[in-house]
């Protein structure tokens, strides 16, 4: 396969041993209108990404109930990534603005349960930001692989 854009970063990730069976599992909830298209753009442009991410497409980041995130952790996900349109850019007007408040609360609360808040992240990635998606995935996977504790 002809992989363009092969950087040192991605090579390092492939070499790193990981924690569980050599691999970490990450669940990503992507909004249909921006981030899913952004991830698609990254794929079309053949930007190389680690393969630990399982993507679930949702209509809007506001659709992501914190219940989904907690359930994903409960079922053994090492990390959860939620991504949607940039604030004020939501397809439905205000979905991601409600979501931002919920996610920020959850992120602040997780350490109180003894769960590393680095395992959860929410990002805003638009349909044209394939490059940003690649960077986020690479760095998020790296962060999960290098985490300590629960």
């Amino acid at each position, binding site marked *: 396969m002809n992989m363009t854009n092969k950087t040192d970063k991605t090579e390092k990730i492939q070499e790193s041993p990981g924690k569980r069976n050599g691999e970490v599992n990450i669940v990503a909830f992507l909004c249909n209108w921006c981030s899913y298209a952004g991830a698609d753009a990254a794929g079309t442009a053949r930007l190389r990404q680690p393969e630990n991410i399982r993507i679930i497409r949702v209509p809007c980041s506001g659709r992501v109930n914190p*219940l989904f995130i907690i359930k994903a952790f*409960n079922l053994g996900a090492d990390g959860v990534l939620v991504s949607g349109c940039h*604030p004020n850019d939501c397809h439905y007007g205000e979905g991601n603005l409600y979501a931002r408040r*919920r996610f920020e*609360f959850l992120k602040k*609360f997780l350490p109180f349960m003894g769960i590393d808040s680095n395992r959860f*992240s929410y990002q805003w990635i638009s349909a044209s930001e394939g490059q940003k998606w690649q*960077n986020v995935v690479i760095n998020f996977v790296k962060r999960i692989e290098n985490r300590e*504790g*629960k």
Partner: protein
Amino acid sequence: MSVENNLKEKAGEIMEDLELLVGYSSTNLPLKVDPVFIKDKGGIDSLVFTKTCINNLSTYAYSLAKSTEGKIGMVLKPCDTRSIIQLLSEELFERDKIKMIVVGCSGIIAYKKVQKYLKGLRIISGKIEGDSLEVGTIEGKHSLKSKEFYADKCYWCKIYNNPPLFDEFIENEKELDAVPREKYEDLDQFESMGLDKIYSYWEEQFGQCIRCYACRNICPLEICRERCITHLEVPHWQSQRINSDEGRFFQLIRVMHLAGRCTGCGECERACPKNIPISKLMKKSGQIIERLFDYRTGEDPKKRPPLLTFKDVEENIKEEKIV
């Protein structure tokens, strides 16, 4: 006993307008009271108000407001009015549906604290006089100081004789004599234990959870009861297994559900048969909401709860950049 007499007098005056009056009545069990539902004037004599009225009667507010046609009277402590205010701020029923008879409070004895002090011995008699608390067990009588056994919320209470919202207010001639404490002082110490220790602490606590859902059923703000995720078969969010993972899952969902709504009445912890410190979670949730959105629950029925609204620019949210 004049507070009690005033309460009975007031209740008698307004009973005509009410379909139902919810209050406290005495029971055979020492240091406990029962909720009582009064339909006519004859029942008013059974009302009591003592230092053991720990129940938050606003638990019945939502379901009674939905199931009755007339007005409902409710005997509340000043701290209990917060729950009603919170329900009103979510526009769950009309303001005039519930007639709030607020009685000034001078500290409420937490039964669980007394029992913990007696190392689980059964309490067979209890008497409160002024500052002293006489408790009898099979091993003899104990003379305790009542102000050391108040419910946690009493130690940072500032509204004991100054309720934020009421229809009728009966002042208590006694002052709250609890030594004031900082609300969040124990959280910092808990958090400084480090993630691993915190995780194993909760693992042990939730390992005991039998998921009786008493904490959910008693909560005045968890109005979802029949529609709760624990009842759903499709999707099957909560499994029937009993282990700490499932307990943690359930409590995290509860915390998320009550974020920016919990008024810290402490009923969940009181109802817990396994003595899991649930109110610690709720306290942390309140602290985060205060810091992020500058919102305190149960103060203003016109203010929108923080997770039901948004701002274009959030001053206190710093989004992380993973690049």
